[in-house]
């Protein structure tokens, strides 16, 4: 009696296990090429990951419609929320590899770093829609799509320095830093020796703040006391908005200039900081939604409205991710031309596509060039400032104005241990 019941229970458990395991193993019967992504749409970076996910999805749809992946190739895009947690990203990426993905989009520096080795083993190139430095070193299967944080800091440093000199000041300007104490926030670090070399005095006491701070008064006061003329941040819009609002409240904006690196997507800064954003600087490595005089930007903005409704406002992150999708399309097309559409796989996309991209301009970002070691693609950016005035897309009474219509270039700056791979990279003068 007991044994029979035990057998029944064991059989029930086995049935349950089979039901549980099968959906994991079946995968998609894909005739088309599968591209995948793991945006953290419910994590702490959800504010930026949501439009990024939408931009990638729509960009792939657009490329499919226009045949940008090459003749005979259609791309299916699947994504899963990573929650900005490596423990969720890893199984998701493994599932996508088993499902036969040829290219994977990552949406944060942490995720890109975590799956870097797995991607190399699985022969799946990844495109990082973020701007972190660490995923690109040592050069592997992770490709950036635009200028990384530290090189945008170099661009901002050059611009501010020239303005400082134009105003007739002869003393070296002092730069203070308020940032996150994580790989994202500290991505600026590689540019500090360069800034010092060109004449900046970087205040060594870097001020760190919480991921979503509600008050940064003490950090601002410390930098003010240290004599900062400029304060730069490497964060996403919401925390930087707190910096700007606190600076306004403390009356610091009249004698200190504030700037943020490329993660401070302006549409969200306007929403977060409101009037406190006026006069602040951002250095950006993609086109803005306001530049509808550029045909590609106009087309993307209209396409977004077509897909997502007339009220949809394609902000910075959307355009950034759309550019990543176009970059994937370009690489796939090049791979298809090199090996044939039926033989395109992850390895071909990397070796015959991504690594062979030379001076390619999507129209949404500065031209990209990769090679065997180069994984960042670009080192150009432009400097913008927030001004009063109606925004052509978002309305309201604040918008952004470009201060440098041409792309400004940074020298190639790489971490010291990888200098041997980049002979053209900037090196500090001997003895410094």
């Amino acid at each position: 009696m007991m044994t029979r019941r035990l057998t029944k229970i064991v059989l029930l458990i086995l049935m349950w296990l089979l039901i549980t395991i099968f959906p994991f193993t079946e995968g998609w019967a894909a005739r088309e090429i599968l591209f995948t992504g793991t945006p953290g749409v419910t994590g702490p970076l959800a504010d930026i990951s949501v439009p990024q996910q939408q931009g990638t999805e729509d960009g792939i749809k657009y490329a499919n419609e226009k045949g940008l992946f090459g003749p005979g190739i259609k791309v299916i895009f699947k994504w899963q929320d990573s929650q900005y947690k490596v423990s969720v990203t890893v199984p998701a990426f493994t599932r996508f590899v088993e499902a036969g993905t040829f290219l994977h989009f990552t949406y944060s520096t942490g995720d890109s770093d975590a799956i870097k080795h797995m991607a190399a083993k699985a022969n799946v190139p990844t495109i990082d829609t973020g701007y972190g430095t660490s995923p690109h070193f040592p050069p592997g299967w992770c490709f950036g799509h635009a200028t990384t944080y530290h090189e945008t800091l170099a661009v901002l440093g050059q611009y501010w320095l020239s303005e400082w000199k134009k105003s007739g000041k002869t003393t070296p300007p002092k730069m203070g830093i308020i940032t996150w104490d994580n790989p994202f926030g500290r991505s600026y670090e590689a540019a500090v020796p360069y800034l010092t070399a060109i004449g900046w005095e970087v205040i060594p006491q870097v001020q760190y703040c919480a991921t979503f701070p509600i008050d940064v008064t003490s950090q601002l006061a410390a930098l003010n006391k240290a004599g900062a003329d400029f304060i730069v941040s490497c964060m996403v819009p919401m925390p930087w908005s707190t910096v700007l609002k606190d600076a306004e409240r403390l009356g610091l904006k009249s004698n200190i200039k504030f700037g943020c690196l490329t993660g401070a997507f302006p549409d969200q800064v306007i929403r977060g900081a409101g009037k406190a954003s006026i006069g602040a600087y951002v250095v950006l490595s993609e086109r803005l939604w306001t530049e509808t005089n550029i045909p590609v930007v106009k087309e993307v903005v209209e396409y977004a409205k077509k897909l997502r409704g007339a009220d949809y406002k394609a902000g910075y992150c959307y355009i950034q991710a759309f550019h990543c999708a176009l970059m994937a399309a370009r690489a796939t097309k090049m791979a298809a031309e090199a090996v044939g559409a039926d033989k395109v796989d992850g390895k071909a996309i990397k070796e015959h596509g991504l690594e062979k991209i030379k001076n390619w301009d999507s129209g949404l970002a500065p031209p990209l060039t990769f090679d065997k070691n180069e994984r960042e693609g670009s080192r150009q950016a432009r400097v913008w400032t927030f001004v009063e005035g109606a925004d052509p897309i978002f309305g309201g009474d604040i918008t952004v104005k470009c201060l440098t219509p041409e792309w400004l270039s940074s020298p190639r700056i790489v971490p010291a241990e990888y200098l041997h791979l980049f002979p053209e990279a900037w090196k500090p003068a001997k003895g410094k």
Partner: protein
Amino acid sequence: MDIRLPCGVFNTRYDKDTAIFRTKERGCLIIFIIAFFICCPFIMSNTFLSILDLIFITIICVMGINTVTGYCGQLNIGQSAFMAVGAFFSGWLAKDFSLSFWLILPIATLAGGMVGGLFGLPSLRVKGLYLALFTLAAQFIIMWSFRHIPCFGGAYGLHLKEVSLGSWDLSGPRGFYPILLLSVIIAIYCSQNISRTKVGRAFVAIRDNDLAAETLGINIRAYKALAFFISGCFAGFAGCLWAYFIQFVGVEQFTLLDSVWYLGMAIVGGLGSTLGVIFGVFFMKILEQITVSWICPILVERFPNVAGETFAGISLLVYGLVIIMFLIFDPRGLVHWWNILKVSYRLHPFSY
């Protein structure tokens, strides 16, 4: 008489009462379960194996919480930082000293234990919420140290090489699985043994009433520190395995939220029970996968007009709700349900 034992089974000796295999059926069931997990790499996909790998690592880490909080009653909300100690030490030893994984594993375990023990020292003076705040502080202090001590990689983190045994590549979800399975079996055995020894009984006595325990002659200071040391050892062990599984260690991988989830898993499973930890981790991790990998994508496909992130948010609501439900309706956790199931099975057809 222990009603959880089948009818007719009597413990006539003390060692029988504390035996792991208390009945033949139980022994068979454990062997069957181990055999099943040994077979997993042959029947399961890499995806499912990677989920199992992460479950095993989490079980080892939560075993630590079970020891210090479940057995000894000392609140710990810094477990992921202690796990980070194991992970970063592994990365550092591999990078700067080129030590092999097999040597690093015990060193990282001990490092986790020592740091755990160090941050457990305040438990000699404070308890309850105050102690919880100490462990919270440990989370920040430890992670700050790893960010700023250059040998631990700073902003760039640390990369680790694959584990190998001769020519056998032990990396990736499939390759690393045997190591993780063996590790989790060892961890479960150790955790189960703690509860069966003098040390375990001392922990329980301290948890139930530390004043009474002291009057019984238990050195509560030494045992509290020991509980934190053991908890840290589990976390360090799990951290080392994590580092080699992912092959990259970064500060963002060990957050305060993770520490809270680990405690949540122990609560859902049933604090103070090794089996509860296993149930809790399996339940929460499978729930996570079901909502994130199955339900959300299906909803996104079925309702394309609703934004995907709306559905993705469901997963977080579900986890939170599950913990709330358990806290309100059954704080004894899943292991209590298991015990009820066992008892009702054994008493069948009687309902009492």
